[in-house]
Every structure is written in structure tokens, then in C-alpha cells.
């Protein structure tokens, strides 16, 4: 009876999911309610978890509940602590939640809500969550070692070294792109800049308070911090309203880029307890809290999706980012569906705390599904905006001009009705002077969130408050990522150089630290500056590079997983990682090839360099370059971007070739050849309890 009830229940849920998906996919020409999207996503995720992850856990990987995990074997009460499943889920989700699933889907909305939704749903179930789950499992079986170490042991030291180079390059790209998003959000925004700048003294105060006044009282100090942040948002409004103060906090993108570079260097050399840790607490709590608030608000408000299901820009002519649906939609969504970074986190601290192998299913697969929920909500927030507003915010000045009139005319030309009054009214509602060309996803998400929250909690000025609150919440965890990421990058640089020149690896050496930090900050700072002086608007150029790098790392993680499954003599199940791996490799390599060699200057770096090079040879200027020197810089930037894309492609091809070789050797070997830690049984009492 129970089995039949269960089967009928799942069949009904599947029908429901199919019906919701049908509405989302097939209705054209009329606006549908966002709840169809949410319901489709929710039911699809539940079904995917129940059936596919169980299949992977029980048949393909054969999770062994009787096996002792590194947390039990190395239990030290500090890093290796067997942790309860629900508590560890929170830790892992907080570790993987980042800016990526908020920005990617917002940018992907250029093509309408349907392409992005379909890829998020399909991608996370068959690629993203699989990657996280399998990496977590494999790391747990290998004494909780990191991805780089695992690749070295299964695919050889060459592959490990190449992967390390790739990881460092992605780290730099990630920080540069996130920094660019912050710069674009705060340029010419005195309210925003004041609020974000206020987080520095607040964090410093919290750090000193926590270190010397009340050590360990994290909850207390976080509460103080969050209240101060909300006050900062409110005070920011008054700052923006006052002409003298507003002028003091108004900076253009270039000035902000320099400020961010200086901040990045300074913050990453300060002791962690002073600035980074308090900021981390604030950003983690705000991140989780705000996402939860947005989820509840969407459920209550049940807004309509104003963006059409599919726009004409699937042909690749879009203003926000160039390139057709394949491969660039997948590159743009990146972290929302599959994220290579998660494989680093899944082989980081979480495997050291896994109490039982069976928990890997909900923690690895489940938390990525939750991340995809965040991505769907970001997509919803972007698509509840009037398309005219969306494109006004995300198109570069070169496409829409700099006044509401020129913008409205250009956007109406693309087929989206919008009036100049709507554009200036929206700007006034959110407390800004203009919303034009505020690219980078963060302002768009903030306006969408502000509209949804305002409709649930109306009041004069509440839209402006929620807008700046949303900007603050994103800027806060981006700044934390920049700080923490620069430190991680510094360690990576020290490790890589230390492999050749050993004394460089010494973290006690002030000189080595400073030099490695300079290399790291110089790396992302260079790309950040390139982004703010880019004719195409910065995001247009850098986000695809980041997306390619991210998908490349995911491809590497899946290559490693496939080879390891073959080595475990579970090769008949290797398709669960090999199919997403192939898809990612095809996407990444096609996108990389197009970015380097396409003849369209809006897509191909070398074509863009040729266009500017020819103008340079005739001493002509193309906007925004105001001098021949700037023209030369643009040509150089394009060539470096092309070289970076080629680097990413070479890294993934090299690891693939080495992976094929390792797999071939494994197939010819008679016995399993995977380098797992030996089996140790859980003590009987513990096994019976779990």
C-alpha cells in the first residue's frame, strides 16, 4: 500500500512539473506569472533529487554507510569533526553561495526567461549537482584531499600542475569580474558609495570589539553590524540628497577601480580578524537572510514576468553580451547551473566534516540544487522588470546613448516599448540620477528585488531603500570574496613559484607575502582597469572570459571524476560524469574559439583588435578612446584577452588528453587502480546510530 501511494504521489508530482514546464515553455505573447516558473523549478528539483541523486548514490557510486570517513579517522576537534548532516548542509551551502548565481541568470535574461530557465533546470540536475556530489564523495574517499591533489594522484603530476595554473587564472578572472560589477554598481552613485564605504569602519569596529572587548561573541557583534549597515543605508539617502555630500561621494568608474585596487591590497595584508572576518560574518548572514527574504517576497507577491519567453537576441545580436544561444548562453549562466569553483569547495572543508558517506548525497547534490533555486530567483527578479528598463540598465552607452530620450528611442527600435519618463521615474524611485548603462547584473537584480519587496512592503522611499540595501548586500559579499580571494591567490602564487624557488613559499616572509600579493592584485587589477576602459562596456568582454574559465574548471573536475570512475572499475556508470563533461568541453572550446577567432569584432577579440588596429594606423579614434595611446591600450587588451582564452582552452585540452591516457591505462589494467584511502569500518555503535 505504501509503495503504491509513494509511486502515485511521484507520478502526480511529475505531471505537475510537466504542466508547469509546459506553461513556462509554450505560452507566447502573454505574460505569465512567476509562480509557474517557481513551481516548475521546485518540482523538477525535487524529482531530480529523489530519483537521479539516489541512482547515483546507490548504483553508480555505491555510498558505503559502514565506512569510516576522514572526519572520524582524523577527528581532532578542530578541522576534522564529524558534523551532523543538517548543520553541515548549512555550512556547505554558505560556502558555495556566491555572486555567480545572482549575476549570470540576470545577464542571460537578455534572451528571455525561457532559455536561461531551461539550462538552469537541466544543467544543475545533470551536470552541476552531479559534479558537486561526485567530487565530495571522491574527496571523502581520499582522506579529504583537495581537487588539485586528487588530480595529481589519479591523472599524474603534470595534470595536477596544469590544473593548478588553471585554478589560479580563474581566481584572478573571478576577482576582476566581481570587482568590475561593484565598480559599475557604484559609479556615479553617492548613496551606494557611501553605504559600501561605511562597511569598512563598521567592520573595523566589529573586528576590534570581537578581538579585545568580547572575544567569541559572534552573534552579538553581527547583530550590531547588521543594525549599523541598515542605518548606513538610511543615512546614505540623506547623503545623496545633500548637494555637497553627494558631490563628495560621486566618482566615475576609473577612480573607483583604483580605489578598489588599493582596498584589495590593503585589506589582504591586514590581519584577518580586523577586517576580513567581521566582513565575512556580515556578508554571510546578510547573503542568506536576503535570499530567504527574496524567496518569501516572491511567493507572497507572485509577480508577473514582463520579459518575453524568448527575445530576438537569441540570434546573438544582443547589447548586453554578444554571441548566439550556443555556446554563450551556457557560458553566461555559468555558476547558476554548473560551477567549477564548487569542486574546489566540495574538496575543501566539507569532506573533513562529513560524518557518513550517505550524507554526501544531500550535502553535495542537495546544496547545489538550492543554489539553482537562488539562480531561478535571480532570473525571476530580472524578468519581472519591464524589458525596456532591463535593456536600459544593461546596454552600453554605445548602443543607447546617455540620455533617457536616446535610450528610449534605441530600445523601442529593438521592439521593446519604453518611454523616457519611465526611465527617469525609475531612476528617481531608486534614489539615483540615472539607471542607464548600469551593467553588471547587480543593479538590475537590485531594481527587481526592490520592486518585489516594495510591492510586498509598500511605503514612500521604500523602493530606494531596498535598492540600496540590495546593492549593499551584493557589494558586501563581493568585497569579502575579493579580500579572501586575493589571499588565496597569494598562497597559490607562493606555491607555484615555490615549486621552482623554494624560499618563496615561506608565509612568514614579509617580502614573499608582499610580492605574491602584488602579483595577485596586479593581475586582477589589470583586468579590472581594462574593464572600465572597455569600448564594449567591460562586462561584455570579461564575463564570457570568466564563464569560460569557470566551465573549464568544471570540465576538469568532471574529467577527473570520469577517469576515477573508470579506475574504480565502475566504468559502465562513467556516463553520469562523462556526458556533462563532454557537453562542457564542447561549450568551452567552441566559446573559446569564437572569442579568439570570430570575424565579428563584437565577439572575437582578435577581430576587435584588428578593427581598432586599422583605425589606429590611420590615426582615427573610436569611442571611448580619447587618444591614440588609449587606442593602443585597447588593441593590447584584446590581444591579452585572446591569449587568456587560448590559455584556458589549452589547459582543458591538456587535462583531457592526460585524462584519456590515464583512463586507457586503467581500462587495460586487470584490477581497480583508483588511489583510495583504505577501507576502515565505522565502529559498530556509530553505524547503528546513523
Amino acid at each position: 500500500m505504501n509503495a503504491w501511494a509513494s509511486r502515485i504521489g511521484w507520478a502526480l508530482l511529475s505531471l505537475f512539473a510537466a504542466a508547469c514546464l509546459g506553461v513556462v515553455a509554450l505560452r507566447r505573447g502573454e505574460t505569465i506569472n512567476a509562480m509557474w516558473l517557481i513551481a516548475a523549478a521546485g518540482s523538477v528539483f525535487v524529482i531530480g533529487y529523489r530519483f537521479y541523486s539516489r541512482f547515483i548514490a546507490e548504483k553508480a557510486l555505491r555510498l558505503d554507510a559502514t565506512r569510516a570517513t576522514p572526519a572520524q579517522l582524523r577527528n581532532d576537534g578542530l578541522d576534522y569533526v564529524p558534523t551532523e548532516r543538517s548543520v553541515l548542509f548549512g555550512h556547505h551551502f554558505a560556502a558555495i553561495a556566491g555572486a555567480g548565481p545572482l549575476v549570470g541568470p540576470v545577464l542571460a535574461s537578455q534572451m528571455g526567461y525561457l532559455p536561461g530557465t531551461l539550462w538552469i533546470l537541466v544543467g544543475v540536475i545533470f551536470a552541476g549537482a552531479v559534479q558537486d556530489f561526485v567530487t565530495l564523495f571522491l574527496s571523502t574517499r581520499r582522506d579529504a584531499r583537495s581537487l588539485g591533489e586528487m588530480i595529481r594522484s589519479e591523472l599524474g603530476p603534470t595534470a595536477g600542475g596544469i590544473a593548478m595554473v588553471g585554478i589560479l587564472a580563474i581566481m584572478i578572472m573571478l576577482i576582476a569580474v566581481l570587482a568590475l560589477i561593484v565598480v559599475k554598481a557604484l559609479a556615479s552613485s553617492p548613496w551606494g558609495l557611501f553605504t559600501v564605504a561605511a562597511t569598512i569602519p563598521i567592520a573595523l569596529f566589529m573586528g576590534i570589539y570581537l578581538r579585545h572587548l568580547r572575544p567569541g561573541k559572534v552573534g552579538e557583534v553581527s547583530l550590531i553590524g547588521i543594525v549599523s549597515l541598515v542605518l548606513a543605508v538610511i543615512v546614505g539617502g540623506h547623503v545623496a540628497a545633500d548637494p555637497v555630500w553627494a558631490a563628495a561621494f560621486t566618482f566615475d568608474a576609473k577612480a573607483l577601480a583604483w580605489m578598489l585596487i588599493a582596498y584589495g591590497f590593503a585589506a589582504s595584508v591586514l590581519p584577518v580578524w580586523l577586517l576580513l572576518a567581521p566582513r565575512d560574518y556580515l556578508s554571510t548572514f546578510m547573503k542568506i537572510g536576503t535570499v530567504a527574504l527574496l524567496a518569501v517576497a516572491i511567493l507572497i507577491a507572485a509577480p508577473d514576468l514582463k520579459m518575453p519567453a524568448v527575445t530576438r537576441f537569441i540570434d546573438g545580436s544582443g547589447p548586453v553580451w554578444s554571441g548566439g544561444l550556443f555556446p554563450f548562453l551556457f557560458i553566461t549562466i555559468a555558476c547558476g547551473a554548473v560551477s567549477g569553483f564548487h569542486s574546489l569547495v566540495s574538496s575543501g572543508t566539507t569532506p573533513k566534516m562529513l560524518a557518513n558517506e550517505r550524507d554526501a548525497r544531500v550535502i553535495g547534490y542537495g546544496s547545489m540544487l538550492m543554489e539553482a533555486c537562488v539562480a531561478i530567483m535571480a532570473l525571476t527578479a530580472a524578468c519581472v522588470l519591464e524589458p525596456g528598463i532591463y535593456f536600459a540598465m544593461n546596454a552600453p552607452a554605445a548602443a543607447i546613448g546617455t540620455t533617457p530620450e536616446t535610450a528610449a528611442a534605441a530600445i523601442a527600435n529593438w521592439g521593446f516599448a519604453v518611454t523616457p519618463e519611465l526611465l527617469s521615474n525609475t531612476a528617481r524611485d531608486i534614489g539615483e540620477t540615472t539607471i542607464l548603462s548600469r551593467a553588471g547584473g547587480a543593479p538590475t537584480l537590485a531594481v527587481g528585488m526592490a520592486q518585489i519587496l516594495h510591492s510586498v512592503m509598500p511605503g514612500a522611499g521604500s523602493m530606494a531603500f531596498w535598492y540600496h540595501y540590495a546593492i549593499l548586500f551584493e557589494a558586501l559579499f563581493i568585497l569579502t570574496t575579493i579580500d579572501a580571494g586575493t589571499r588565496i591567490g597569494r598562497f597559490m602564487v607562493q606555491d607555484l613559484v615555490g615549486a621552482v624557488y623554494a624560499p618563496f613559499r615561506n608565509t612568514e616572509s614579509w617580502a614573499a607575502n608582499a610580492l605574491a600579493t602584488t602579483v595577485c592584485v596586479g593581475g586582477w587589477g589589470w583586468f579590472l582597469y581594462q574593464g572600465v576602459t572597455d569600448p564594449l562596456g567591460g562586462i561584455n568582454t570579461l564575463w564570457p572570459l570568466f564563464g569560460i574559465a569557470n566551465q573549464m574548471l568544471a570540465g576538469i573536475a568532471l574529467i577527473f571524476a570520469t577517469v576515477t570512475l573508470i579506475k574504480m572499475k565502475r566504468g559502465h556508470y562513467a556516463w553520469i560524469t562523462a556526458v556533462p563533461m563532454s557537453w562542457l568541453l564542447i561549450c568551452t572550446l567552441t566559446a573559446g574559439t569564437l572569442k579568439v577567432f570570430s570575424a565579428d569584432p563584437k565577439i572575437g577579440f582578435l577581430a576587435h583588435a584588428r578593427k581598432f588596429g586599422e583605425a589606429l594606423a590611420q590615426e582615427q579614434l573610436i569611442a571611448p578612446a580619447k587618444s591614440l595611446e588609449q587606442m593602443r591600450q585597447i588593441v593590447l587588451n584584446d590581444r591579452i584577452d585572446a591569449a587568456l582564452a587560448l590559455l584556458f582552452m589549452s589547459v582543458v585540452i591538456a587535462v583531457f588528453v592526460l585524462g584519456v591516457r590515464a583512463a586507457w591505462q586503467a581500462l587495460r589494467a586487470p584490477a581497480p587502480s583508483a588511489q583510495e584511502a583504505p577501507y576502515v569500518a565505522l565502529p559498530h555503535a556509530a553505524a547503528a546510530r546513523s
Partner: protein
Amino acid sequence: MLPPPGPEQQRLIERLHRAWRKAAQTANLAIGVGDYEAYVEHVRRNHPGRTPMTHAEWFRARQDARYARGTSRCC
């Protein structure tokens, strides 16, 4: 004065306590702060000769470990 809680109410109170403790542990772990009591118990049980770190020392050690070499952060 309120009457003392009966057995059902005591069970509910226990459940709420457990849920609150789990929520606090989750929030702490999300920011990289583990469970101090678990650490102290581990030291007492497995290293009886050693004195566990004070709460302040342990907290500083955990904070430093969170941003140390070998950690990774997501996008």
C-alpha cells in the same frame, strides 16, 4: 506564578532547545566557527593530559584557519 511544565511541555521545550542549538551550530559553521563544546569534549576524551584551549584562544585559532592556505571560496 505559572505552574511547572508537565511532561509533554518538557518534551516540547527539549525539542525547541535542540532545534535552537542546531540552528546556532549551523549559523556558526556557516561563518567557520565550529562547536567549542565538541572540541573540549574531544580533548578531554582523547587527550586527557592536555588542557583544552580557552574559548578566546580557540576562537582565534578557528578564525585564522578559515582564511589559511588550502581553503577556497566560491564565486
